[in-house]
């Protein structure tokens, strides 16, 4: 089964307290992406760069900021192909954000073109 692991981060929390630590955390993210069960993944730009689009009566309404105004923001995602939910949950648990004040949502993929 495929799952999208949506990574939420606290944008005010620093990614590590030293350069070495930041490098180690980055390496962890890269290693997860290297896992053969990981189909895709991306790190997203800070929330300041986000715009939201709604179309009403044919007119696109663009607003500044994300759809949901929350303290934690979407910081990236992985797409994984694993046996079952337990394996996906284990994957999610390895993501550094999950232990650094953020959280990872595990969304089963309903449909995806191969």
């Amino acid at each position: 089964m495929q799952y999208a692991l949506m990574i939420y981060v606290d944008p005010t929390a620093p990614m590590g307290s030293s350069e070495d630590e930041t490098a180690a955390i980055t390496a962890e993210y890269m290693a997860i992406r290297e896992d053969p069960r990981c189909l895709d993944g991306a790190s997203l730009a800070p929330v300041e760069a986000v715009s939201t689009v709604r179309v009403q009566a044919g007119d696109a309404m663009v607003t500044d900021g994300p759809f949901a105004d929350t303290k934690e923001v979407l910081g990236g995602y992985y797409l994984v192909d694993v046996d079952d939910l337990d394996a996906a949950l284990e994957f999610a648990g390895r993501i550094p954000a999950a232990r650094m004040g953020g959280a990872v949502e595990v969304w089963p993929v309903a449909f995806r073109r191969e």
Partner: protein
Amino acid sequence: MIDQVFREEWGRVLASLVGFLGDVDLAEEATQEAFAAAVERWPSEGAPRNPGAWLTTTARNRAIDRIRRDRVLRAKLPLVAVPEVDDVMTPDSTIPDERLELLFTCCHPALSLEAQVALTLRALGGLSTEEIARAFLVPAETMKRRLSRAKNKIRTAGVPFRVPPDHVLPERLSAVLGVIYLIYNQGYAARDDLASEAISLGRVLVSLMPDEPEASGLLALMLCHHARREARAPGGELVRLEEQDRSRWDHAMIAEGRDLVDRALGRPSRGPYAVQAAIAVLQTEPEIDWPQVVALYDELVLLTGSPVVRLNRAAAVAATGATERALAIVDGLELDGYQYLHSTRAELLRRLDRPAEALAAYRSALELAAAEHERRFLQQRIAELLEAGAESS
């Protein structure tokens, strides 16, 4: 006869069908159909030699017929290929018991606790949606939605049907134990049937995991409490453990609990359920060994760190005669919103002949008490103190 078979076989047949089909909803439909066929045929044709195997085979065959008839259903079965004709079993085949797998699926942490409880009662206990709704005081429609949402999530999110691997087994097992104990506690106050249901689930778990001390511990704990149900509040009035009429205890049940505890405590690692059960067993002895009870509470405090456990430990300390020391423990706990902190404190103050403070503490407990028999008990204590002139002192 059919009712009894239903109770005994429902969980096993359903588990086998979930294992076969990979879908709880379809498995439930097929199992229900098989039980309906039994109700229809057994009275006239006689019950089969092996009712469980008959029901499982019938349910599987119904499910296969259904899948063949309705090709659309194939889309609903992501986990298994449609079984071939050869897979159809005869009633003589041995059916593996997959109830443990089903129990772990029902108590998966990806489901809400409410859903875990409802699913466990439905899938393993064989209770109807209406029965579960009544037990948890929610409308039947709400319970129906809760169950169907949970079953959908199991399918859509890919919740596995298996006994978890070793590295996650302890936490998953503790979820299973927690669900069973929650069902027991829901039954403890008022609903005997739910308490009995929790005990049956506990028995199933012990039969499936005979070497797991916490499973034995939980069952023993429930048995020791359940054995005292007739003596706990005869005629509606709450009777404290020391004052209970022991001839109303179910001594066979206590003996079973004691055997289970002896086995559980003989193992190297003892968990919180086994230790609580050991305490419950000690408290059924003719002469309670309170220092030993305190020692077990020390162990339980280390295992759980719970302030409620510390409070119970204080009560055991008081029972050894060290009332002052017990009061000091109680006064050091941050449990202001907890009724039993105040009632325990009140009792200790009363024994220490500090009636004015005891009265105030009983009143704090009464403010927090909801259960009618507990309120009456507290009101009676307050009346006694007032009669002795507590207010003026």
